[in-house]
């Protein structure tokens, strides 16, 4: 308890000090020490990273990328899987061979539909985006969201 109080008092002190220190140069800016150099271990021809601003004219920024709605349009009457709250619903969907399944992402987070056996993989699906895949043959297809692999789903295709 006493320690908690102490910590609180100290925290206030730190805040005050932080305020004080803001009025003077931070972290020894007057030092004449040179910037340290970077040495890369690998013998690669190029080096990782990139240089920062060095007086280059600033280029106009590209427009903010919008999440592209990719995949085929939803099939009317097709089999649907909804993505809500980081879950596939239904988690297990049973369809007949030859069916097209359409996933729709209702989350603000992007998701993907990625078969565990690698047989299909959607692009990143932004909010409202759909992805469709046709299952020609019978089988059990497990998939995950490759961004949030704790999300699991299964499509069971009957003959």
């Amino acid at each position, binding site marked *: 308890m006493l*320690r908690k109080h*102490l*910590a609180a008092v*100290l*925290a206030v*002190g*730190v805040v005050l*000090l*932080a305020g004080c*220190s803001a009025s003077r*140069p*931070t*972290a*020894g*800016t007057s*030092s004449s020490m040179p*910037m*340290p150099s*970077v*040495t*890369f*271990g*690998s013998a*690669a*021809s*190029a*080096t*990782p*990273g*990139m*240089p*920062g*601003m060095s007086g280059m004219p600033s*280029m106009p*920024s*590209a*427009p*903010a*990328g*919008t*999440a*592209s709605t990719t995949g085929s349009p939803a099939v009317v009457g097709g089999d649907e899987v909804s993505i809500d*709250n*980081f879950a596939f619903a239904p988690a297990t969907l049973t369809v007949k061979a030859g069916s097209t399944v359409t996933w729709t992402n209702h*989350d*603000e*987070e*992007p998701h*993907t539909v990625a078969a565990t056996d690698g047989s299909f*993989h*959607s*692009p*990143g699906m*932004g*909010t409202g985006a759909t992805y469709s895949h046709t299952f020609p043959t019978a089988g059990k297809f497990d998939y995950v969201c*490759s*961004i*949030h*692999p*704790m999300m699991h789903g299964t499509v069971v295709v009957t003959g």
Partner: protein
Amino acid sequence: MTTDPKTMTRRQLIRHTAWFGAAVGFAVVGGEVISHVAGASPTQHAVGRPTLRFAQVSDSHLGFTGAPNPDVTGTFSQAIDQINSLGYTPDFVIHTGDLTHLSSPDQFDQVKQMLTKLQTPHIFTVPGEHDSVDDAGQKYRGAFGAGTRGDGWYSFDIAGVHVIALVNTLNLKKLGHLGVDQLEFVEKDVAGLSSDTPIVVFSHIPLFAMYPDWGWGTDDATQALSYLRRFSSVTCINGHVHQLFSKTEGNVNFYSGTTTAYPLPHPGDGPAPKPVTLPAGKLRDALGIREVSYTKGQTALALKETRLQ
């Protein structure tokens, strides 16, 4: 141990105090905290810059357009301006991943252009899972992978500190994953270093089990960290979780950084790590940048967290 961005743990307090080199100011308070600070600060009175100082920015999610932050370009730009206004030039700036929201070519173009406005000699990155959504990181490496090894990992030495940048967002099963090739890289990479070399490790997903139910951990991190066990100072810095958090395990200090885009819930708060919409005017309190400094002769690095202003 969660860390609310507005408060600080005792450890952070100690670091924070160390950052300002103001141990003397607390002498009147006395108590345990002071003895720690005093014990840790023999070299803090040295005038001049720290041996190494760098800034971290993370999870810019360029391309995100949801209600939690309708202007991620604006907030990322603000973070860059804030780093450019630190009053000194950081030796490098690290972006710990989720540069983009959906790995689209225009999002990579945009984030690259914005990063080059940072006033620093070096800009480094590691990929987030949002940067490798559908191509196992190919577009990411096209933009940022020059000179890296394997799937984009690398290391370098600066001011006597050995820095390792890892990729743990590929081949995800549930948690972050490094893979055998990368583990071998880490083992060989540090083999020739003396044990008093300070090690800094960057990754996107935490290398500690912050909240495995949401994928906030790395399944083979223990193996990587075993190669670092003999070093006296190991600091692991990550993004991904969009909130400040710190943890110490043995010789390793872990620090999760915040985001410039939108907050995520605290671990286990709700069913899923969904972006959080804060009340109007509160968003910037959850976003921020981090400064890190290392002074030769000290084991712990000093961290300073600053909210977006």
